[in-house]
């Protein structure tokens, strides 16, 4: 059934085909007639039987039958409650489904109809018959996912224990291990059994060890068969990710002393507090977070999830302290204590804000009188202590103490697949799995012998080896590289430089993180970069900047010389309220006439737009708003002082006019002062 090209349906002779289609047309119009006029007589229903026998894919036919079934049943129950009649009606429907399945065992409509009929629970289903049917079906095609779906449905209906179904998956795997459906069902059942801690499934670690042993047999027997690798991936996931959500990092970090520039403190009106979790959480609110300081009481703080899809769950939660600058005048500074009661644990943070007088000399005004140049000297040695922010400590603490089994298991798997990669040098699955295993090991055990170089080499190999999945490997490689660069203070300092040429943020010191020219294609590990105010991502291959929304302190962002194709791809920037300098030059914005990402993100209709005034102005300039809708929404939400857009297909004189109108506070556009 699988791995074989689908044969063209048998060439019917034209006369027979024509006769068949004529018959279909007649039956179809008859069916529609009955359907519209709600005629559910025996004769009418038999028309739908004939039609579905020829073509089980006609959904209307199934829907009509459902209505007919309900209608006729109601009539029965109105007169008398004859279970025999109900039974025979049900049997008629089930037989119809079997006829249809014989024609096409993968007919969605037919399977759904069967589920619907039995789901009514009008009479006790004949489970023996259902399981026999399933056996027959899975014998013909052991991987038919419709069959597996239906089996799950029937098992639930009959209340078959998960252990029993687990045994069934084992039988199927023993018959032929190249069976995605069986492996998949196994992972589902095991998840349930482990979660419920059913008898015999208390020891999660020993169960998973056994599963590793099982899937190894499949992987080593036939490394080119994908089904086992998928199951291995699931196992790896069980082994590497902690089940419970927990806090990964926060801004500010615990015990941080924040220096507020005395000179610019007037401008600092909003101070962000950011929580990063390892997975999406909800319930970060006044009830779960208490803020203690003489500055503000908790109730003035609103916690918001930062997410692209407006959901109430997010990995990143943010809140702002308003007008805090008034309070940190005195010499002790302002001390803030935060307690977060979330995810069955309590996290305490305490930080201090102080005025700093070690300020940039001779800078006046608001810092945007001069053009900001991205030329922070890279060579300059940076003292690690300057990076006072410390998300890493939290990470080490969060590593569960009982991670020994996880590390042992991962190490054993790593050793095994290294051996395998030696005899099978060109297997992409081996390389990919090895890379994932090493990555998982890294994520549990930081520091020490990290495998970054090895993983990067594996992805480099994969990029060459497996061209069709080139983009995926590049994305993964980007994440590993970002992980490596941000893995410790010492490694991050390598990419830091001190920014001397301007000053427009109130938080000292002002360091520029330079991640340019690294072939990055996506952003990750933002939780370690929450403190960053100046970020250079130029000369990479970024097409998306998802994740950057977490960097609430960001003031300057350089995205020049990347491959950003649309304004929609810049959506994360919208939440960066402190952003002042944005370099988007030499991207591909506007290269594609249709912005295909648009419909994945929130609909433009959902925006409430208050730019009517600007729009009128634009209309006067003869600029069609519809053409630049995304650009308007983006820039309108920001208070940029400096923007570079040159080298993008979208950029022309009219666009420049538009930008100047939409961003009234803009001072520099494409390196030139705005009138």
């Amino acid at each position: 059934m699988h791995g074989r090209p689908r044969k063209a349906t048998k060439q019917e002779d034209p006369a027979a085909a024509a006769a068949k289609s004529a018959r279909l047309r007649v039956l179809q119009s008859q069916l529609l007639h009955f359907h519209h006029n709600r005629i559910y007589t025996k004769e009418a229903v038999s028309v739908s039987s004939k039609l579905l026998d020829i073509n089980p894919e006609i959904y209307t036919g199934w829907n009509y039958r459902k209505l007919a079934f309900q209608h006729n049943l109601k009539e029965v129950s109105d007169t008398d409650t004859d279970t025999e009649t109900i039974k025979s009606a049900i049997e008629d429907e089930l037989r119809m489904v079997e006829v249809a399945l014989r024609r096409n065992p993968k007919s969605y409509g037919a399977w759904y109809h069967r589920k619907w009929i039995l789901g009514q629970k009008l009479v006790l289903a004949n489970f023996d018959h259902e399981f026999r049917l399933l056996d027959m079906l899975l014998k013909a095609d052991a991987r038919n996912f419709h069959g597996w779906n239906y089996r799950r449905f029937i098992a639930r209906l009959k209340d078959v224990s998960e252990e029993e179904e687990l045994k069934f998956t084992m039988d199927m795997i023993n018959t032929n291990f190249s069976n995605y459906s069986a492996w998949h069902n196994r992972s589902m059942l095991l998840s349930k059994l482990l979660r419920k801690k059913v008898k015999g499934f208390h020891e999660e670690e020993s169960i998973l060890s056994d599963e590793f042993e099982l899937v190894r047999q499949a992987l080593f027997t036939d490394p080119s068969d994908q089904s086992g690798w998928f199951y291995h991936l699931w196992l790896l996931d069980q082994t590497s990710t902690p089940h419970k959500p927990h806090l990964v990092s926060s801004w500010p970090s615990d015990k941080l002393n924040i220096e507020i520039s005395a000179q610019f403190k007037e401008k600092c009106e909003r101070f962000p507090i950011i929580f990063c979790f390892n997975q999406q959480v909800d319930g970060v609110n006044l009830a779960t977070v208490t803020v203690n300081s003489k500055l503000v009481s908790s109730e003035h703080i609103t916690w918001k999830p930062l997410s692209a899809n407006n959901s109430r769950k997010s990995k990143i939660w943010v809140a702002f302290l308003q007008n805090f600058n008034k309070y940190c005048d005195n010499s002790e500074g302002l001390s803030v204590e935060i307690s977060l009661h979330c995810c069955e644990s309590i996290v305490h943070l305490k930080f201090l804000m102080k005025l700093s007088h070690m300020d940039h000399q001779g800078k006046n005004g608001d810092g945007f009188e001069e053009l900001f140049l991205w030329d922070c000297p890279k060579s300059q040695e940076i003292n690690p202590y300057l990076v006072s922010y410390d998300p890493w400590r939290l990470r080490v603490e969060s590593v569960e103490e009982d991670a020994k089994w996880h590390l042992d298991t991962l190490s054993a798997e790593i050793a095994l697949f290294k051996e395998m990669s030696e005899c099978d040098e060109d297997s992409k699955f081996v390389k990919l799995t090895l890379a994932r295993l090493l990555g998982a090991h890294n994520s549990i055990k930081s520091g020490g012998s990290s495998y970054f170089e090895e993983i990067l080499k594996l992805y480099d190999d994969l990029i060459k080896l497996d061209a069709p999945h080139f983009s995926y490997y590049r994305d993964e490689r980007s994440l590993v590289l970002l992980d490596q660069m941000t893995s410790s203070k010492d490694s991050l300092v390598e990419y830091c430089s001190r920014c001397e040429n301007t000053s427009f943020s109130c938080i000292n010191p002002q360091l520029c993180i330079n991640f340019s020219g690294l072939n990055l294609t996506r952003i990750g590990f933002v939780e370690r970069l929450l403190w960053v105010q100046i970020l250079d991502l130029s000369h990479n291959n970024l097409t998306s900047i998802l994740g950057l929304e977490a960097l609430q302190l960001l003031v300057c962002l350089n995205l020049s010389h990347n491959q950003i194709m649309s304004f929609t791809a810049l959506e994360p920037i919208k939440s960066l309220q402190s952003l002042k300098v944005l370099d988007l030059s030499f991207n591909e914005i506007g290269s594609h006439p249709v912005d295909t990402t648009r419909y994945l993100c929130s609909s433009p209709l959902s925006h409430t737009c208050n730019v009517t005034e600007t729009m009128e102005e634009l209309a006067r300039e003869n600029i069609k708003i519809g053409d630049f809708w995304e650009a308007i929404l983006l820039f309108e939400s920001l208070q940029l002082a400096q923007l570079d857009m040159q080298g993008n297909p979208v950029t022309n004189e009219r666009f420049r006019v538009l930008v100047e109108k939409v961003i009234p506070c803009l001072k520099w556009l494409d390196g030139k002062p705005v009138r």
Partner: protein
Amino acid sequence: MAEIPTSDYPTIDPTSFDLIVSSTGLSASLLAAAASVAGKSVLHLDSNPFYGSHFSSLPLPSFLSYISSPSSPPNLYSDVEASSQSLPEPSRSYLVDLVGPRLLYCSDETVDLLLRSGASHHVEFKSVDSSLVYWDGKLCSVPDSRQAIFKDKSLGLTEKSQMMKFFKLVQSHISLTRSGTTTESGEEGGVMIPEEDLEMPFVEFLKKQRLPPKIRALVLYAIAMADYEQDNGDSCKIVVSTREGIETISLYTSSIGRFANAVGAFIYPMYGHGELPQAFCRCAAVKGALYVLRMPVIDILTDKESNKYIGVRLASGQEIFSSKLVLDPSYQIPASLSPRETVVSSNLSSYVAKGVCITDRSLEPNSANILLVFPPKSLHQEQSTAVRALQISGNVAVCPSGFFIVHLSTPCEDAALGKEYINSAMKALFNSRELPAESVQAQTKEEGESVEAPTQEEGETKPTLLWSCAFVQELREASYDGAVSICPMPDANLDFRNILSTTRKLFQNMYPGEEFIPQNSAADNIDDDADEGSPE
């Protein structure tokens, strides 16, 4: 007519035939069937009261007297040594194959021939449940398919991947060969084994594929069924070439799954292999061959002048004439007529040592019919041939249910050595209730050592040997000279492929230009259904 000694013998009429076949062995029966199908008039005789000759399956007492009978003239069977004179009862319900241990590949030519000739209507088959190999003093299953490799518990992970890789190479070679691609690498990743590799010894090829010793042994002896130690290089009697090895594997793999109701590659006929010659005899009978059992040929008649064959004199005294004659290998022919052409110029061993055991338990739980191979050196350091064993059970109706017959064999030069291997194989498999008379002495001599046998717990799991017997059979090739052909003795192989090709050659020699049981020769009496020959 006055000289007819007894009136027990029937008179045969007519007295002239195209062909007289005096033996109902497999080869002889095939020749009778093929000649009948080709429209020849055939008289088919056997001196025995039963069908099958040296290919028969006999009740235990008859079997024992058949192989020990001093009357079977030129010591075809020798060195018969039974564990006890008292046979397990009911002794007549044990049916012993003279050709054992033997099996049919689901895809081999014998099965095709059975289907083609309609003989399949007279035989039913059961499949062999598992294939084992004796390695490191233990029985392990032979991982002969992807799924079997996956499930195997004795192979290491690397071994699994090496073995599977090798199978894939062979598979790709086979499928490319079948599809007729001649280029050395097919379009879509298909790889063919290069010509020079096909010529090299299979063992060298396996080494070239970097397969470890255990897997080499599995492939050579348990899948490619090599008889002789292949690692010996020049001193090896028959070196299996890569081409031959691949061919057997190809047959093996195409056999798996040929019949939906057969689990593995091999099948065994219900009531024993003796059913096969009978089935072909029936085909011949349907086509008009005349059958007379208990009718020995006592003399061969020759033309006085040319000294050429013209007919035979039967034990009844009747003289029957024919243009061709086929004789049993046991028949002693006058030197003047003795065929000079051997069909296969043979460098084979001249003997095969065999063993028959009756046991009370299966070698492996949950399996009834089991093929087992002892690779060379697995029993003795000097063991130079593979010993094959086949356990068959009540489900093929050869013994009472709950009991098992185990056939063993190994080719040998020297009868004593061959029997030694057979006996040590028995010892490795079973707990003997009664030791063979001869070895009792040997046992007592070594008492000091063998008493402290540390195999106590292992011993508990072994089946008990109720009765056993070892003997040696002479291997005789087929031969022909003009009108007279002599059939081969059963060979030392696991299957009938060799016997079949020999028979085909004999037939071509007898009737050049006639087709050997053509495709639809059975068309008039059956509707040819491909599944007919399948086991139930």
